[in-house]
């Protein structure tokens, strides 16, 4: 980030809450000098038509992500645990409300 010249502004990821009751959702990224400027730019860039009531900005290099290559070892353990799902259990149709 301290590199002089063109690369002076770091990248930020932007998350917008569309309305109360919904989660913040990732909408894109932008360049800004600091967090305050990132928030203002996010407002101008991603909410020009009332798309949001709240914004988060996060430095992109602070995001830790799972690797696509590790998808199997990371997510597959939940695949064979079918007993975690309600449809795994057989209940007679005569039993109400279950």
């Amino acid at each position, binding site marked *: 980030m*301290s590199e002089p010249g063109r690369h*002076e*502004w770091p990248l930020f990821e932007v998350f917008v809450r569309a309305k109360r009751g919904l989660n913040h959702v990732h909408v894109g*990224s932008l*360049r800004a*000098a*600091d967090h305050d*400027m990132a928030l203002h730019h996010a407002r*101008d*860039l991603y909410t020009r038509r009332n798309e949001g009531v709240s914004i988060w900005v996060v430095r992109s290099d602070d995001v830790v992500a799972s690797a696509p290559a590790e998808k199997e070892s990371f997510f597959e353990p939940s695949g064979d645990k079918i007993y975690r799902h309600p449809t795994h259990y057989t209940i007679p149709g005569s039993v109400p409300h279950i």
Partner: protein
Amino acid sequence: MTMEAELSDDERTFHRTIERDQRVEPRDWMPEGYRKTMIRQIAQHAHSEIIGMQPEGEWITRAPSLRRKAILLAKVQDEAGHGLYLYSAAETLGADRADLTRRLIEGRQKYSSIFNYPTLSFADVGVIGWLVDGAAICNQVPLCRSSYGPYGRAMIRICKEESFHQRQGYELLMTMMGGTTQQREMVQDAVTRWWWPSLMMFGPPDDRSPNSAQSMAWKIKRHSNDELRQRFVDMTVPQAEALGVTLPDPALTWNAGRGHYDFGEPDWSELTRVISGDGPCNALRIARRRQADEEGAWVREAAAAHAAKRQHAHREEAA
């Protein structure tokens, strides 16, 4: 299936994703050619939005009413926004937006040839909204389903906003057509000048578009240039009739057999000329972009220095 056996696991995963119409996401493995094509297309698109601010921006201070001025300001601001959504998508592929800007200024990356034409009267603002943004919508709606996730998502946002651009343009023209004879002549003159360049926005004819086949196979592109051009003509002719203007093409006629309008051949040598830098405004557009970049440098540096100073003070306080 010998081909299949030669593919690596990564390649197989990539091709399966495309085949199943799923999206390729930033950290997925992708062929270098796909990455390069995607960066080139997204950058070119982003540059078009940014350069596209200029022809209409010239009319902001000369808009005939406060209402028109507010609309035009909002529209030009949208173009800036579209450029930034797209640079954001390009950065997910490992491109750096400052580097892309440098490539644009140095003429190493291109932008849509349409923005190299001048805006001679206020009617041009309306015609750009109606025809140029109309053609852009035809091109962009299928791109919402482009195989690269971040590009498709950027296009969804852009398409929603383009609809305002096209409607404000058409409304502006309807207003002028209801005015004086001179105003109607201004509209007709602008339509006559912009019609052929608008048709050229879809690119060269299919048999002269060398990159199309690979882009279609990768599902970056969903329809051919000629298909989209035909769709645009079919959409636009009834709109021109409703407006009361004449499209400058004597060959334009309804073909009941095909269920489409027949139309004349654009002058492809003009497109080649304008793309290669010899359009009416190429030098002006790039000079203006370079000037904005240079004149903005001190602001970027000052903001960075201010941020560094604040961070420093913050650290001292915490220590």
